Structures are given as C-alpha cells and as structure tokens.
C-alpha cells in the first residue's frame, strides 16, 4: 500500500500525470449510454403527451403521422358530455377542503412533534409516516368499507375525509423542518409578554411559517388533484374528481370517440400542470417525493 502511495506521488507533476486525467473511452461510452437512456425516456414521455394533445385536436386520425383535419369541437363535446363544469367544481371543492383541513390539523401537530419530546413520540411519528409509505389501495378498501358503514361513502364528505389521510401526514412532514428553523427564543419572548398558545400561534408562528405553509399547501394541492385510488374507492356518481371521471371515460372508451376522451385528458393535464408550475415557483421539485437532505457543500 505504501508503494502505491509513493508511486502516485511520483507520477504527479510528470508527463504521466496528464494521462491519468484524460477520461478513458470506456467511461465516456458509459456516460453516453446513461445520457442516451435519460434522453430516450424524456423524449418518449414528451411525445406521449404530444400524441394526446394532437389527438384531441384531430377530426380524424387513422394511422398517419398527422391527423387528416383539425377541429376544436371535441373540447365542447367533452365539456357537455362529461359534465365537466360539475366535475371541475367538485374537484375544486374537494381539493381546497383537503388543503385547508390538512393544514388545520397538520401544522399544530408538526409544531408539537418538532418542539417537544414526550413519551410515545416515536410511535406517533411512525403512525404519521405510515399513510405515506403504504400505498392507497391497500388501506383504501377497508377505509371504503368503514365509510360506507358510516353512511359517508359516495358523498363529498367521504371523499374529503379519504383524501385527508395521506395529506395531513404530508403536511407534517413538510412543515417539520420549517418549524425547526424558527428560533425558540421568539416563542419564549412571546410567552414572557403573556401570550397564550393560540395567540402565539396566530401572531408569531403563522406569519413566520408562511413560506412553509404555502409550500405545503401547494404540494398537497398538486398531490390531491392527481390522487386516484382513494377518490375512486369512496366517490359516488356526483362526487367524482377530475381524475376519476377521466378514468371512467378511458375505461368506457369504446363507446365514445377517443378524441373526446383525449380532450378531457388534456383538460386534466392543463389543470394539473398549471398548479404544478405555480408550485414549482415556491418549492424544490424533489419535495413532491421526499425530503431532500442535501449535504451542505462539505469541506470544500
């Protein structure tokens, strides 16, 4: 081992050192392969979305590169046929109710988990982590059973409650680092001046937490619009969100023109992407998936 170290030292500064810094062709081939795979993936996904968009504006499209003609009537048809006005309104109600309620119960819980240590804290954190790790279908079927027993199944309230289950823990997960970075001295100062907990929350914590609350609400909003399984299992005919209505449209696609189904898919995609773009202005994209714990640069 000492020989290898000495040999490396001897090579530095000589002409041979230049050879070590040139990337061997095998590494460049490997790099090219990886970039190729990534590009292939992205290009295919983009073309997939473009295919849906093209089809939604096509009058007829049978196996050629581009459709025979273009029209925008499928959008009007889809609007009337799928009663998109109603469905969009239901989606708006569900999503905003879920965001509001999840913030209401999630932010105080995140505060307690971030600031206090108590018996059973780890068990409680596991309890809040479970709905995010277990896929919705697994706990959705027993949940639907319970909701139907409580006569909440198929109603708007049932859909809101079902969507709240993954939303509240997500709020807790997102808010915890924001709360941790608020100086506890500020809270102590508020208490010294006689603030009770609700007053301290309202006048000190919530204004400081505003960016975190905004980030959490946008993330919950984007996730709830696209959440399919829970709404699918608990919705009735008049409490479907947009994604569930889209599923039924694709499912029964033989009956309808595929162009109108694609028009509806485009509307769904537009709604989702608009909110995603708004959310990306305020949050890191990876927060949709996990809490990014980036290494702070290291000892550079």
């Amino acid at each position, binding site marked *: 081992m000492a020989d290898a170290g000495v040999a490396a030292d001897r090579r530095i500064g000589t002409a041979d050192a230049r050879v070590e810094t040139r990337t061997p062709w095998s590494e460049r081939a490997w790099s090219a392969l990886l970039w190729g795979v990534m590009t292939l993936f992205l290009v295919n996904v983009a073309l997939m979305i473009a295919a849906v968009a093209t089809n939604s504006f096509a009058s007829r499209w049978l196996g050629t590169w581009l459709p025979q003609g273009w029209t925008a009537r499928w959008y009007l048809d889809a609007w009337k046929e799928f009663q998109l006005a109603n469905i969009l309104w239901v989606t708006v109600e569900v999503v905003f109710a879920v965001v509001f309620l999840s913030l209401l119960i999630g932010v105080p819980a995140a505060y307690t988990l971030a600031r206090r240590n*108590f018996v059973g804290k780890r068990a409680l954190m596991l309890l809040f982590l479970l709905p995010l790790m277990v896929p919705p279908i697994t706990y959705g079927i027993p949940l639907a059973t319970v909701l139907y027993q409580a006569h909440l199944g198929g109603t708007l309230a049932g859909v809101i409650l079902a969507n709240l289950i993954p939303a509240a823990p997500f709020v807790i997960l997102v808010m915890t680092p924001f709360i941790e970075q608020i100086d506890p001295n500020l809270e102590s100062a508020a208490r010294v001046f006689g603030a009770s907990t609700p007053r301290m929350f309202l006048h000190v914590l919530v204004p400081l937490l505003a960016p975190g609350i905004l980030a959490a609400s946008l993330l919950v909003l984007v996730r709830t619009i696209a959440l399919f399984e829970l709404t699918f299992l608990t919705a009735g005919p008049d409490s479907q969100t947009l994604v569930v209505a889209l599923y039924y449209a694709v499912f029964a696609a033989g009956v309808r023109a595929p162009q109108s189904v694609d028009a509806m898919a485009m509307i769904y995609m537009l709604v989702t992407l608009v909110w995603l773009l708004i959310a*990306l202005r305020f949050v890191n994209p990876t927060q949709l998936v996990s809490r990014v714990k980036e290494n702070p640069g290291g000892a550079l």
Partner: protein
Amino acid sequence: MSATPAATAELRAQRAPFDRALLLVVPATAFMLALFIYPFVYGLILSFEPPQGGWLANYQKFFTTDNLWTTIGKTLNLALPATIINVGIALPIAYKMRVRSRWQRFVTTLLVVPITLGTVLIAEGMLTYFGPKGWLAQFLQLTHIYEGSIRLTHNYWGVLISLVISGFPFAFLLILSYVTGIDPVLARAAATLGADSKAQFRHIYLPLLAPGLAMCFCLAFVQAFSVFPSAVLLGAPAGPTRVISIAAYEAAFEQYDYSLASAIAMIMGFVQLVIVAFVLSLRNWFYKGPVTGGKG
C-alpha cells in the same frame, strides 16, 4: 437522606405543569387513529367473519379459487421486474447527476411531470402513443427497425412500461436525494489515495448508499405492487395482468362481499410486508454508520 412522604409529595407538586402544547397533536392523532388504524383493524376482524363458513373461510376461498390466488404471482411478476428496472436504471443516472448543476435542476423538474400527471393520464397517453397505429409503431416501420405490428398495449408489456414510466422518476428523485446527502469529501479522499471513479463508486458510495437503496427499493416495490388503473386500462384485466388489487376491487364493489375484499387487502398488505422485511434485512449486511465526512 431517605425521602419522607411529605418530601415526595412536595417534589411531585414541584414537577412542571402539564404542557398544553401537547394537546396540539391530539386532533391529528385522533384523525389518524379513526381513519387509518381503525379501518385497518376493522378490516382485519371483518376478514375473519365471512357470511358463511368458518373464520378462515375467506382465506381458504382465496387460496383455492384459481383466479384469486394466481393474482399474487401475476402481481409479483409485474412488480418485481418493474422495481428492479426502475432502481437499476435510476442508480447510475442519479449517481452521474450528483453534482449540483443546471442540468440536474432541469432534469429533476422535467421528471417531476410524469409523477404529477398520474397513472391514468399515462395510461391514456400510452394507448395513443404505443398503440398499434401510434407514432412509435409508425417510427419503427419508417426506420425499418421492426416491420411487424407492435403489441405493447392491452397486455403485460403495456402495464410494465407504464410502471416504468411512473416509477422511474420516483426512484430517480429518491436516489438522487440520497446520493447528494453523501459528503463528496469522502470520494476526494479516496481519489487522493489513488482510487479511480469505478473504485470510488464501489468502495465509497455504494456501501453508504446501500440503506437508502434498500429503502428506495421497498418504496418503489410497494408502489408497483399496488398497481390498479394501469392494469385495467392498459392490460388484460381478465388474464395475464389480473393483479391483486383488481381482485380486491371486484370483491368489494362487484360482489359486495366486503369480508372477502378485506381478506384480499390483508393478504396484499402481508405479501408487501414480507418482501419489504426481506429487503430491509439484507440491508443489515451493509454499512450503517454516519454518512458525513470530516473529523469526529
């Protein structure tokens, strides 16, 4: 000095008053208990109370009916290859992009789009694009790569491709967050001792990544195992892609046998638990210490 009863009582009175901030966590806890734990327990009990037969009748029915117990195998047949592909491809690419750059942010933002759009839209897009008359088929014919007609929808391959499209970005983002959490100082230290990039990966990054990789595999597998809309829209739900979630859904909403549906959901959860426990036990073979460099 032994504690007299009076001294103990005085000590007890001096203990801090009940911290009312703890009450703030009660609504969330109550909600989780009522709507997550209780349905699970209720479903478990319900699965042991079938409309007819003994308390194990549901499970017996599941394992003796042909189109029920084979769903486990079919779902594993879809979920395991999809997870291995997702994690296997995401790892080298995420490792390559571990350096913070504009490219990394650009690609990360792009990859968030398939995750957000969801499986239903991906299914509809695939039916149009990967269909027998879609752009992919026309492209393959134009370039004479493959002359025959392609069958990538309404079969096993359609579901597998959709699992890769929706699972790969998720695995990539998760692994990227783990890789960027490893101090690059360690790799530089290895480089000063003469390790080339392959050795750096094998001896430094891979052991440190192993716990995160195991976690990512588990999460990706669990997501793939509970595939539902893709299997119905893009697969052949009566045959090779009859996954276990379809069986549970049919039992609940087409046969209205909530007891059997709960039993199937329990079995689904149990199979996932077995595989997750197996993968996490493999992780114990690897390094479990801190991932930061530096002194101390």
